[in-house]
């Protein structure tokens, strides 16, 4: 038998951890039992209507609390999924709670012994015990463990590190995402953590994952940076983690260190520093391009960025530069780092960083982006509205709809109307307009076809190159110029050939 000290500790632990485990009906039940035949009647020491009077006294407070709760509920992000049973959830604002309702950015840990089903707008996802899921407006992000996708009326999208799987209605697809770091750090050897941020440590350690896909029935496709791959039913696919290029990683680390060091030294009042400023800008551009080309370099940099951005002592100028790098990371932990930094100084977040956060569903930057939409026909209005739409907000729908009517023939001499049309199509597609992207593809095919027939290779090539960004699976709108440069550099060559343009056009519009 346990000694008394041990049992007293358990008593204290129950007292500490158990919520209000009391039975609210016990007092009335006791009263009835005492009043039952054979039992003496209790003395009427409880005055009549005492509870009613107390309740009436509390009524104004209850009404005020209800009003506050109402405002809070209205401001909360919409529910994206409902779990069949309550489970442990790390919310986007860092709170740990048990709930059934999942919102954008929530990280759900299926810690029970059996499978757990989630009802989503696009169907159902059934998670195996141990699975770690993050909920996004576009679908789910599987961070670890196994999940079964059962789409309902529309496609269901599941992301896992370097690949996404799109399952069509009626399909049954199993995914298994294996982190290379243990899901949970060793409990007793780990340093004490004051925060309840459930898996921050795990995610900062997790460098890469391997993804196994088994489509049992129906249609599914794998979406990676290289393009779309159909997944035949019954054929398992195993994707190993991408190999990190050691030389590229060393280069990235050097650029990042230079960025920190040189930005800190910069004194913009001193003209002598203009050369250094140019160097810092070039370093940032090089690093941005490197990380966009090789996103597998981001996880090893993640922890350093997190620490710098969490430290109050980091100079504001350095913070601004680092935010631009952290915003390239699509991992949910990176978004959480940005969101934690936001309250300390929103001014440090430039427009591209705001776009990156908005398109991933962050509600924090929405008011800032909405101010860029005051001129509804401007380029920025459509871009902001489209990024908001990718993140699940329909605030800018009114700015997107007119841009859908832009004729691509009129855009052949100016890429800005072309971009507005494409961005509007992406945004409207994210908001549920199933025809927006097919119409863009058809128009693109027609206009580029005409340009090629006329021998206007230059115009045809730039149009297709920009379309390569907009029509890729899971498009992103932040850091657009860099994305366009990287999307299909061969199309920007002076001696670009018509067959190459046609080949790209076919790939983008089939």
């Amino acid at each position, binding site marked *: 038998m346990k000694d008394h000290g041990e049992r007293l500790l358990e008593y204290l632990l129950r007292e500490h951890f158990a919520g209000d485990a009391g039975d609210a009906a016990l007092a009335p039940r006791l009263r009835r039992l005492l009043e039952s035949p054979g039992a003496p009647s209790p003395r009427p020491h409880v005055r009549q209507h005492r509870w009613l009077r107390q309740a009436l006294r509390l009524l104004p407070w209850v009404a005020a609390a209800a009003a506050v709760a109402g405002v809070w509920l209205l401001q909360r992000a919409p529910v994206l999924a409902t779990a069949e049973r309550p489970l442990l959830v790390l919310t986007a604002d860092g709170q740990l709670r048990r709930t059934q309702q999942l919102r954008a950015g929530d990280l759900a840990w299926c810690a029970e012994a059996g499978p757990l089903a989630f009802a989503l707008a696009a169907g159902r996802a059934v998670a195996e015990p141990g699975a770690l899921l993050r909920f996004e407006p576009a679908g789910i992000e599987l961070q670890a463990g196994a999940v079964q996708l059962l789409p309902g009326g529309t496609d269901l999208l599941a992301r896992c590190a370097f690949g996404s799987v799109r399952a069509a209605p009626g399909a049954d697809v199993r995914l298994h995402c294996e982190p290379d770091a243990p899901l949970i750090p060793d409990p007793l050897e780990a340093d004490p953590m004051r925060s309840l*941020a459930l898996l921050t440590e795990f995610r900062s350690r997790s460098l890469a994952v391997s993804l196994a896909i088994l489509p049992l029935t129906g249609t599914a496709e794998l979406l990676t940076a290289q393009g779309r791959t159909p997944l035949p039913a019954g054929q398992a696919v195993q994707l190993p983690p991408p190999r990190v290029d050691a030389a590229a990683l060393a280069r990235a680390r050097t650029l990042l260190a230079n960025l920190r060091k040189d930005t800190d030294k910069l004194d913009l009042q001193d003209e002598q520093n203009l050369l250094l400023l140019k160097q810092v800008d070039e370093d940032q551009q090089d690093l941005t391009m490197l990380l966009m080309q090789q996103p597998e370099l981001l996880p090893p940099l993640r922890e350093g960025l997190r620490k710098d951005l969490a430290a109050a002592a980091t100079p504001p100028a350095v913070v601004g530069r680092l935010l631009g790098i952290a915003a390239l990371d699509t991992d949910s932990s990176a978004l959480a780092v940005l969101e934690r930094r936001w309250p300390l100084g929103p001014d440090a977040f430039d427009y591209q960083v705001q776009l990156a956060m908005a398109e991933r569903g962050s509600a924090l930057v929405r008011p800032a982006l909405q101010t860029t939409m005051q001129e509804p026909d401007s380029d920025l209005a459509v871009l902001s509205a489209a990024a908001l739409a990718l993140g699940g907000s329909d605030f800018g729908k009114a700015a997107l709809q007119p841009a859908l009517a832009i004729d691509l023939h009129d855009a052949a001499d100016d890429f800005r109307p072309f971009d507005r049309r494409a961005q509007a199509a992406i945004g409207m597609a994210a908001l549920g307009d199933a025809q927006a992207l097919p119409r863009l593809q058809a128009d693109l095919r027609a206009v580029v076809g005409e340009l090629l027939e006329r021998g206007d290779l230059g115009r045809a090539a730039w149009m297709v190159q920009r379309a390569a960004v907009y029509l890729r699976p899971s498009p992103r709108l932040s850091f657009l110029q860099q994305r366009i440069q990287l999307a299909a550099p061969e199309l920007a060559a002076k001696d670009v050939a018509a067959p190459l343009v046609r080949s790209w056009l076919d790939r983008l519009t089939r």
Partner: protein
Amino acid sequence: MSLSPPPAAPIEHLVQTHQRSLRHYLRYLGAPAASVDDLVQETFLATLRSDFTFTNDAAAFGWLRTVARRLLLQQVKSAARRGLQVELEAAEAAFAAHLGDDDGEARRDALRACLQQLPPRQLLALQLRYGEDAPLQRVAAALAVGRAGAESLLARLRQRLRECMQGRLQR
């Protein structure tokens, strides 16, 4: 046990103040989880039907503990009752010492401070086991370890908490 007079304190107050502590106390004494609710109700009922007179909450909790121990004893077969009675009285003595002069508040503070030092996984294990009364199998599944691993983790955690609390209480 006398059936009169009726209680001197409102039933609601007595239940609201002591119900949770009484449940935890019965678990501390070793009462099976399945019978705790019945025992709590019987304890209150027996108290309210007795000549109990409310003076203050500390005395009321002492009264309730005595009744709860007797009721727990009544559930056991007579042959084993004597040994259990000795055990229960020893447990009560330890419990009363734990409450001390401050109703156990110093220990609660020490526990809270020690819990703050634990990483999330360990807190989860404690939350499941003691907050939700989860069986070891469920704790093990949640931690992605075997049953023995969960048991071992909880034991090491309790040991660590005891040492931490002891250190804090001796300061």
